[in-house]
């Protein structure tokens, strides 16, 4: 077999913001795929009746899940915002270096702000656990 170039080989790339935004979107997608299992478990417990639901809530409201929910929330917000950036690119817009750099910062700022606001309402002190 001839040695052919493989993609992507993360180690050969120079570290740049484009690398961070790209791999973060992938990682966020993977996190959401795993998080989807929690959603389906929750739905399934609801379908299994009141007692099963109470039991599932007991498990899902354990303290160890709090950082996981925060990670899922951040992944959801980032994947959504960065995904919209990709859809804009797919329309052929904003591909120039300057505007791509601007939109990267915009995506980061919007994601952090939205994550913090939603985290306050969903996981903050005022909200009872699910």
């Amino acid at each position, binding site marked *: 077999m001839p040695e052919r170039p493989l993609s992507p080989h993360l180690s050969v790339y120079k570290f740049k913001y484009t690398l961070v935004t790209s791999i973060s979107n992938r990682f966020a997608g993977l996190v959401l795929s795993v998080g989807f299992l929690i*959603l389906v478990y929750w*739905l399934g417990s*609801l379908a299994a009746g009141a007692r099963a639901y109470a039991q599932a809530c007991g498990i899902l409201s354990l303290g160890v899940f709090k950082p996981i929910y925060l990670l899922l929330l951040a992944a959801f917000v980032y994947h959504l915002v960065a995904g919209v950036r990709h859809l804009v690119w797919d329309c052929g817009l904003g591909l120039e270096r300057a505007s791509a750099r601007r939109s990267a910062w915009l995506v980061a700022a919007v994601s952090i702000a939205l994550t913090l606001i939603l985290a306050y309402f969903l996981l903050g002190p005022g909200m*009872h656990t699910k």
Partner: protein
Amino acid sequence: MSLRSPLGRILGRGSAKEGVHHWWLQRLTSVALVPLSIGFVASLLALPALDYASLVAWLRQSGTALGLILFVLVAARHSQLGMRVVIEDYVHGEGLKTVALVLIDYAHVLIGVAAVFAVLKVALGGRL
């Protein structure tokens, strides 16, 4: 030597235009997931409480059930397409890669169907 022209030789053997199928489906599902996922989160946040009775009442509204079924189906398909790319990129070795892809495909069908079944069971179920 053939007397057929270069054009004549390649006509009918061209691209079936299916090379972008995966890419296109990933975009279609992502566009649909923007309103579906925001709608799901907003609708859940609008509930006064997340106890069993309120959630069952919520799921028995046709709009909720329909939206949630669409959401879990499209999300499962989108996740399957995304994980396929990740496996194709990072899992080397044909055997392991094939096994991983098959398992991912089956798992997503199983999870998607289980989620739809759960929603339907609550939405159409008789007594609580």
